[in-house]
């Protein structure tokens, strides 16, 4: 049960990565760092103003969106059309810069976004106890993916993003400014990083280097669920979450990560494009 709830969180972690790959065919290696950056942003606002972590999203969302938009607009857009290597290198460099900047500013101490939710549990029919924080995570996951879906389906900008993923030159012929659309997409991916960063910060402790482990989770989610598919990413998140916790239950707590990766390997072998992936 917890696996399912955790899966919802995992889904949000993965969706940013999936979006950028689905739309621009690029892999943003700094996605984990963007998440953790959001966690630290939230921390700053909590310490400055004493807000509840979820409320800090009012500040973290716009900040991260602008960051993502500017990143694509001024940095990544310069290497448009030059293949995957430049983007990979730039995002990798970015992840290193962010990690070390966070280390400098915040020290290597463990941090978390303190909220009473983490100790509360919900009693479900007396059968099992569900940590409320996991419910919040799951709700956050469902809401984020839900909003994203609506945006992609019902708005001109959302359709433009889907169109440019389908056919680049035809999109240009529709009057779509590809550079702006890509910047928008990265901004949105950064928004999901903000959401998952704050949720993660509330649920687990984080360090400046935590970005890497979440990047790996994001990869796991996207590979299992399939790149470029919204429902696929949600499914991927669920499966990864479940397999991790089931593995921990069955074999032992140390095997949590391993059982997740085993499932990843299995999916890669049987269906490399992911369960709901295209191409």
């Amino acid at each position, binding site marked *: 049960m917890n696996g399912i709830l955790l899966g919802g969180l995992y889904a949000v972690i993965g969706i940013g990565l999936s979006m950028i790959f689905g739309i621009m065919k690029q892999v943003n290696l700094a996605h984990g760092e963007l998440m953790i950056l959001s966690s630290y942003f939230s921390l700053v606002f909590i310490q400055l103003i004493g807000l509840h972590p979820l409320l800090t999203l009012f500040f973290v969302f716009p900040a991260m969106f602008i960051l993502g938009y500017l990143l694509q607009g001024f940095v990544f857009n310069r290497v448009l059309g030059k293949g995957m290597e430049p983007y990979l290198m730039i995002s990798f460099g970015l992840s290193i810069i962010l990690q070390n900047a966070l280390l400098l500013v915040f020290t290597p101490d463990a941090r978390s976004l303190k909220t009473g939710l983490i100790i509360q549990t919900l009693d479900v029919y007396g059968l099992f106890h569900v940590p409320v924080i996991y419910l919040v995570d799951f709700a956050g996951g469902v809401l984020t993916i839900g909003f994203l879906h609506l945006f992609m389906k019902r708005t*001109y900008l959302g*359709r433009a993003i889907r169109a440019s993923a389908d056919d680049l030159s035809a999109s*240009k*012929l529709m*009057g779509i400014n*590809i550079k702006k659309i890509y910047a928008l997409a990265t901004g949105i991916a950064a928004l999901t990083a903000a959401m998952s960063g704050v949720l993660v910060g509330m649920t687990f402790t984080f360090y400046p280097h935590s970005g890497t482990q979440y990047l790996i989770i994001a990869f796991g989610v996207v590979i299992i669920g399939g790149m470029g598919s919204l429902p696929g990413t949600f499914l991927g998140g669920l499966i990864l979450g479940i397999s991790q916790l089931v593995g921990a239950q069955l074999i032992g707590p140390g095997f949590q990560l391993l059982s997740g990766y085993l499932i990843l390997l299995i999916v890669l072998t049987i269906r490399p494009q992911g369960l709901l992936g295209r191409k």
Partner: protein
Amino acid sequence: MLQIKNLDVYYGGFQALSNIGLEAENGQIVSILGANGAGKSTLLKTIAGLLKARSGTIHFEEKKIDHLESHDIVNLGLALVPEGRKIFGSLTVLENLLMGSYAARARKSKRENLENVFQLFPHLKERTDQMGINLSGGEQQMLAIGRALMSQPRLIIFDEISLGLSPMVVKMLYETIRRINQERVTVMLVEQDVKRSLKTADMAYILQEGKVCLNGNPKHFTEEEVKQAYFGL
């Protein structure tokens, strides 16, 4: 309406178009012909801003457009129905058409334009929720044309629309093109079907290896002239 002067287009070191000069007047149907590889698609892509010329100028309604990006050119009223249709496979028929009205000039009248497109292509009206990728070749071509019409163009360019389609469908498409032209939209056509092209056009340009070999009113062309311009000696 459209004026091209001294256009040179290169693909890297290879010169695809040399010194192209072309004029299309308001309300005309202009046909561009030539063998495969003569440079027809290159010319169209350059006009639409997908490619950039190395030298020469393109003017659309007195405005210089050769340095503009495609999305700005569409906003001026020039639409291209690209070779291979290139519809958006994962979007529905309706969403494809709505994408056509993405350009700012066309957003307000999108309902009107949608009605017009459905009148021209009632077939599409029955399939609004179908995904682009599930349409037949003919339906995709209709969708591509409808999509271009949604941007309210003053000049619309068709790149090889008869490819892979049955003669019946092609006949219907050409009738549609004539109807579009009657609405005072200037039309430019690139076609493999020489006879049909020459019958429909007011003006024709025949390209050979990137150069204009023959141009003028196609009704005055002799068969010999056309063959020579098309294939060379």
